[in-house]
């Protein structure tokens, strides 16, 4: 079996909220004990509701937030709370595509500079080579050569996202984190970007972590899927298992909630979650999902369910993982 490109071990990122004077300091457990692997060339879909910690997890992997606990292993390099990453080496291994194509490009830099500067920074001295790689990357993401000297404001949202993808790929990373890469784009543009990401994956042998709340997109692109709820992974497995045989009640609720005109009432109303998402500041005891869970029992309140296998490569964190089907 291939060595994992990325392996998270019990990763936690906590934030201190408030100040000592007014009301005291509270701990917000944005990510709380996540264990995950991503293999080379694989696409891991990461889904979960707003505020469940997906972006925080991504930033920690990128080395932009120090982990409170646990370790991140990236291509043989280890990051932990006490050990900061070698940023230059990290940069050539992991890159990121951001959600907002408007805020993620420097308004004062042309496309050429946005792409060429990182190359020079990473030691590509030969002018002709820099130019060739910039042009090659622009062509790969579907931008025309004459657009190289334009500024971001001259591009549409979809084109900007192409520039953002080009910037992420220019250093030839092995893993690319895509944090909601299409949700800020016009609906009719999204397919272009999803297709592009998939083409580049095949062409360059990239691994992705695809963060999205659009389950249709996640099913389409992922090889494996991890479902997060309030800072923890509640279910993880191959895309087909997750979508066809979800074992965690939250995953089922998520799938049931998708307004899909082709599958009206495909999953019974019983699967639907009731009530509001709890706040990450004071999550409910035991299973975080219990206030909304249709299968809740006493044990769910008193005891944390562990993420355990239900089948080969398919794990769920629910006391009744074997009964849900």
């Amino acid at each position: 079996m291939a060595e994992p490109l990325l392996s998270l071990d019990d990763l936690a990122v906590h934030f201190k909220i408030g100040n000592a004077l007014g009301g005291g300091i509270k701990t917000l457990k944005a990510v709380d004990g996540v264990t995950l692997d991503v293999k080379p060339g694989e696409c891991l879909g990461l889904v979960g509701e707003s505020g469940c910690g997906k972006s925080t997890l991504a930033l920690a992997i990128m080395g932009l937030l120090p982990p409170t606990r646990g370790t991140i292993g990236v291509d043989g390099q280890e990051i932990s709370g006490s050990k900061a990453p070698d940023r230059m080496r990290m940069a050539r291994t992991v890159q990121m595509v951001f959600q907002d194509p408007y805020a993620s490009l420097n308004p004062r830099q042309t496309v050429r500079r946005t792409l060429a500067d990182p190359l020079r920074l990473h030691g590509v001295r030969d002018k002709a080579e820099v130019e060739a790689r910039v042009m090659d990357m622009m062509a790969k993401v579907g931008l025309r050569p004459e657009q190289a000297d334009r500024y971001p404001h001259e591009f549409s949202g979809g084109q900007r996202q192409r520039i953002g993808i080009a910037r992420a790929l220019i250093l030839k990373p092995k893993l690319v984190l895509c944090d909601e890469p299409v949700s800020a784009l016009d609906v009719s543009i999204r397919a272009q970007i999803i297709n592009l990401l998939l083409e580049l994956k095949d062409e360059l042998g990239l691994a992705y972590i695809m963060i999205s709340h659009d389950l249709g997109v996640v099913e389409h692109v992922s090889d494996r899927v991890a479902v997060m709820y309030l800072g923890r992974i509640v279910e993880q497995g191959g895309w087909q298992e997750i979508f066809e045989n979800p074992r965690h009640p939250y995953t089922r609720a998520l799938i049931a909630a998708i307004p899909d005109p082709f599958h009206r009432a495909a999953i019974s109303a019983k699967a639907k979650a009731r009530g509001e998402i709890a706040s990450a500041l004071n999550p409910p005891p035991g299973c975080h999902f219990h206030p909304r869970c249709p299968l809740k029992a006493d044990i769910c309140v008193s005891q944390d369910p562990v993420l355990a296998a239900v089948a080969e490569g398919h794990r769920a964190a629910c006391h009744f993982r074997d009964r849900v089907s």
Partner: protein
Amino acid sequence: MSTAIKLPRLRLKGGTSLWIGGGLVATAVMAAVLAPWIALTDPVMDANLMNAEIPPGLEYPFGTDAQGRDIYSRIVYGARISLSVGIISQICNSLIGVTLGLTAGYWGGWWDDLVSGLTNLMLAIPSLVFALAIMAILGPGLVSLVIALGLTSWSYSCRIARAQVLSLKSQGYVQAARILGYGDLRIMFTQVLPNILGPLIVIATLGMGGAILSEAALSFLGLGIRPPFPSWGSMLSEARDQITTAPWLSVFPGLAIFFTVLGLNLLGDGLRDILDPQSTTRRA
């Protein structure tokens, strides 16, 4: 009635204030640059007590002073000193303020606390008082004047730079630069600084006006440029005693200061409207 409606709209476009301000400042700069050619006499050496205190007229357009020197020529040469003091001290202030503000905003932590504390301290004490203290230590003269003014009003650009960095820090492109392996200083100077130059230029322009006023005040108090060298402040200082008998001695340097400072302020305002369009609402 129609002008009442039109004027603010022009101002919003940076039109009037930019042009009037730019014109006034350009005049002062031209005077400074072309001084040797447009001055009628030497501003220091051509003293002639025979010509003392001649009122403005054909031969001496702005009159002469107690030593018989041509005031027009002294004002033209004085522009060199006043503007240099304004420009150089503002460059110092901007360098200090921007460096501190950028690093404080970007790094945060104890460094930010320290810089913010220092900034607040500087804002609490009028910068002129600070400058006075420094001048008292260094003694009068052009160099110490520039040092005094260049060290004492960086708090504005520091505050602006810090606030802007804080809002830009979480922008995708700054994060992307970190992910690409850019060092902190490189990020500050290539990603952040170019995007906050607008407001900083505005602050520096406005600050230049302040520095020229401070120069005048310090020189007036005898701490700045010392006679016989012509700075607008020292000319005012010299004219103190003749304010009733020979008012032109103080009126013309006063007008020079007034129009230059006004010009810089209008220019700053106009630039703000162009460079930082959001501020028009904030200012109201």
